[in-house]
């Protein structure tokens, strides 16, 4: 009776009801559609990647209600067959290193117990198959209640604009309410219409695409106006060609502007790393005149502090980096004060000896870290809110980690300026650096101020280390690769000037990124160095030379 009912055509409604109510019982008999579905799944077992592609098509065509669930499992690497009876199942999502998986029957969607991974063989995918699966699943997602899912689905479908997909987009376009999804679908339909033969429709499509910023749209339009070597055009219709040429021009002009923005941002982000590693030095070297070769190692300590903090709070990776900022500041500042009290204070006024002594300190710190943490790289996890990109529009996207580092640099810089200009300690620091004897005469404990200043500069280096841990490898030689850059920025900006380091670092970053596409990473850096040497020849005191009485003491 049931079989005949199913055959009678109420099948879909019935199965859907069963699914929704999650009450598919054992009484659920195998229909011909189930048999086809199972046969396709069985065929997946020994299929080559090409055959799997065809089977996926078949599963989609078959429109079995479970196709979406099963294909999702396939995409997520959860489709298995059992080694002893060769039956195909999908597994429920499990932890990565789980040895037992809970299996689900693809037809009844009921759990059939667990099995050991050793007894299962995974049905594998490759890049091409995953692309096919995503496009296939996008057809289901296009009617998802979530607008974001629909947007991604529309984009995925555009990758494969065959007749049935275009039909699907057209249907969706009629009922779509979200404007961005609607626009995306419009783009897809326009791209499809471009391949048609109806001239007015094609010109209308070009007018729609004119507002897109996408590279693939631009490529398509440029393909239309391309001229082969014997003078014939790829597109025979002149009106279409003219419309395409004007649209392509408009898109590429906008893209050029955005790409300039992108280069500028890359420059600023590289520059802000340079500023961050240099402003600590701008205090110890610039204000105090101490050549501290261990500055890089203080950054390295900051990076390791980030690692330790993260290891200490494994369940809070999202916020551990925020905890690491003050922690790194304190660790590096205390180390800095220790170095100052134990070594540097005996060497004031003897730059060569300071240089050698701090170089020794840098080696000791490196070896210390190597002994504690080994020479291997430590991986610092990037919190989710720092990974990914901020998609400004289709032509411009900015990676979050760089964006946060630019903002962070600005904050650190502002805080430092506030400390130096608005606090009592800042006043004392400036007084001692300008005229030590007079400051002493006014009752300032200059030795205490020295230690504090050095601690402040070192602490900033530690904070820079937190940022670096997000960009590069955390290992004992981390500091060495940045020490030269930081000295360069300080000398270029003008010894003793905070603003000099800021402007100097940013301009070096931008110039570097402007040159890099043409000269390569190695040559670009060499050009920047040569330019810097020439600049220092002309203006030995840097961009913002110290003025007034203070400069005479130096």
């Amino acid at each position, binding site marked *: 009776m049931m079989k005949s009912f199913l055959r009678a055509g109420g099948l879909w409604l019935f199965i859907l009801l069963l699914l929704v109510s999650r009450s598919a019982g054992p009484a659920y008999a195998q229909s011909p559609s189930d048999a086809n579905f199972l046969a396709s799944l069985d065929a997946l077992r020994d299929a080559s990647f090409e055959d799997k592609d065809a089977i996926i098509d078949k599963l989609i065509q078959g429109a079995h209600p479970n196709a979406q669930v099963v294909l999702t499992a396939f995409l997520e690497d959860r489709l298995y067959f059992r080694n002893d009876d060769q039956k195909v199942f999908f597994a429920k999502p499990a932890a990565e290193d789980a040895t037992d998986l809970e299996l689900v029957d693809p037809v009844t969607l009921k759990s059939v117990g667990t099995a050991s991974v050793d007894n299962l063989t995974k049905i594998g995918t490759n*890049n091409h198959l995953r692309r096919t699966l995503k496009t296939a699943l996008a057809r289901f997602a296009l009617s998802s209640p979530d607008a974001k899912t629909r947007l991604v689905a529309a984009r995925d479908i555009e990758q494969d604009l065959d007749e049935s997909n275009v039909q699907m987009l057209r249907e969706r376009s009629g009922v779509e309410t979200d404007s961005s999804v609607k626009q995306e679908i419009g783009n897809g339909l326009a791209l499809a219409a471009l391949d048609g033969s109806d001239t007015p429709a094609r010109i209308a499509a070009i007018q729609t695409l004119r507002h897109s910023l996408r590279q693939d749209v631009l490529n398509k339009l440029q393909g239309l106006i391309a001229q082969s070597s014997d003078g014939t055009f790829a597109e025979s219709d002149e009106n279409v060609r003219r419309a395409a040429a004007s649209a392509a021009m408009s898109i590429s002009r906008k893209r050029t502007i955005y790409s300039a923005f992108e280069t500028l941002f890359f420059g600023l982000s590289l520059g802000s790393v340079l500023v961050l590693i240099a402003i600590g030095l701008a205090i110890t070297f610039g204000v105090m005149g101490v050549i501290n070769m261990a500055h890089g190692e203080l950054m390295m300590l900051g990076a390791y502090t980030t690692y330790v903090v993260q290891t200490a709070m494994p369940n809070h990776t999202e916020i551990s980096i925020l905890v690491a900022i003050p922690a790194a500041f304190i660790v590096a500042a205390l180390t800095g004060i220790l170095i100052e009290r134990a070594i540097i204070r005996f060497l004031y006024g003897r730059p060569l000896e300071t240089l050698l002594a701090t170089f020794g300190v840098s080696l000791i710190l490196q070896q210390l870290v190597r002994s504690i943490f080994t020479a291997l790289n430590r991986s610092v996890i990037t919190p989710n809110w720092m990974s990914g990109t901020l998609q400004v529009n289709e032509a411009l996207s900015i990676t979050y980690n760089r964006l946060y580092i630019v903002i962070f640099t600005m904050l650190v810089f502002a805080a430092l300026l506030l400390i130096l200009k608005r606090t009592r300690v800042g006043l004392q620091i400036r007084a001692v650096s300008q005229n030590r004897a007079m400051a002493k005469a006014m009752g300032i404990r200059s030795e205490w101020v020295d230690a504090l200043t050095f601690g402040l500069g070192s602490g900033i280096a530690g904070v820079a280390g937190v940022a670096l841990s997000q960009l590069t490898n955390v290992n004992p030689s981390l500091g060495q690769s940045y020490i030269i850059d930081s000295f360069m920025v300080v000398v270029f900006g003008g010894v003793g000037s905070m603003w000099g380091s800021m402007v100097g670092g940013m301009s070096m970053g931008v110039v570097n990124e402007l040159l890099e596409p043409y000269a390569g990473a190695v040559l670009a850096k060499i050009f920047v160095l040569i330019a810097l040497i020439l600049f220092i020849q002309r203006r030995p005191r840097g961009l913002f030379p110290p003025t007034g009485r203070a400069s005479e003491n130096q």
Partner: protein
Amino acid sequence: MLLKWKSIAGLLIATGMIFSGVAKAQDTIKVGVLHSLSGTMAISETTLKDTILMMIDEQNKKGGLLGKKLEAVVVDPASNWPLFAEKAQELLEKDKVAVVFGCWTSVSRKSVLPVFEKDNGLLFYPVQYEGEESSKNVIYTGAAPNQQAIPAVDYLMKDVAVKRWVLEGTDYVYPRTTNKILEAYLLAKGVKPEDISINYTPFGYSDWQARVAAIKKFGSAGKKTAVVSTINGDANVPFYKELGNQKISAEDIPVVAFSVGEEELSGLDAKPLVGHLAAWNYFESIKTPANAKFIAQWHTFIKNPKRTTNDPMEAHYIGFNLWVKAVQKAGTTDPEKVIAALPGTETPNLTGGIAKVLPNHHITKPVYIGEVKADGQFDVVWKTPGTVPGDAWSKFLPADKDVVADWVTLKCGNYNKATSKCSGQNF
């Protein structure tokens, strides 16, 4: 009279032999291990040292070799290239080792080469390299370019239909030579010069944002694009991080790497990298009884069930077994005789198939292309039908087209067929 002298001499020789025999029975066969245990290369090379120690341990459990126990002599060249030569000399001249397993980077191999040739030692070199070399005293158990780079490019060209190529490398000899070969190969296959972009960055480079954006731009020209990466060492971590951040998925622009294996991925969050490719001659995930046994053995030896195995480890496994067989064949550990016995020696691979030493001192190897999975392992998506014999000299470089290496009949590692001249050991 004459007879008497002869018998005395005979007696003396006999006693000498007995004595030396006795002495040698207590004696051991020394095996040199020349891998950096500190410095930048320690990350990779320490594992190889442990692999050889495990193999020696295993062999001793089987009763040793030629009735003698094996003894490892481990030295630390500390990732310092000139120190490699010094330590090699120490192993050969002071410790008088029968064989050396060692080196990772090409520059360290080039540094020890003159020492091995002067002292007539024997070195097993386990890492994929740029080729263009064949020494009498070295057996290359890692892949030559035609056993890794060329098949990987073939796969991308045929199965993924890649039309545009980015050759991204670290700035030193291995990437530069490999890319030179690959560029010549791609041009010969009809790829247009404007569809190839070659770029080098320094060791330890970390500011990848602009480079990755440039790759993205290069790849959006409407033709399928792939990146062939010879980026080596630390720089890989920020490179892959940036790929993940800029959302370059393997479905759009796959990256095939020649220096990133299970070991490198174990220090990385592999989820954003799913689908990117690596070409090797061995993957830990390949299921064969021999491989399962090797992995279990490794976990017991290193006392850590989470440690991965990788391609250079398998190369050492093969190299060690080849050496053992050649010694048994020669009946002695004298390097000169073992070197003569090595060509033609065969031993099974861990992943099926046979590794055979060729007259050019390279071996036959299967080639696999794997896709990164979320757990840091690889899924094999393509493999060569059988094993591929290693070429010492690339067929695709015009200058080396006619050069062959043959230590059996020609007795030369650098023989020009066109001019019939052996250029000797000049590499």
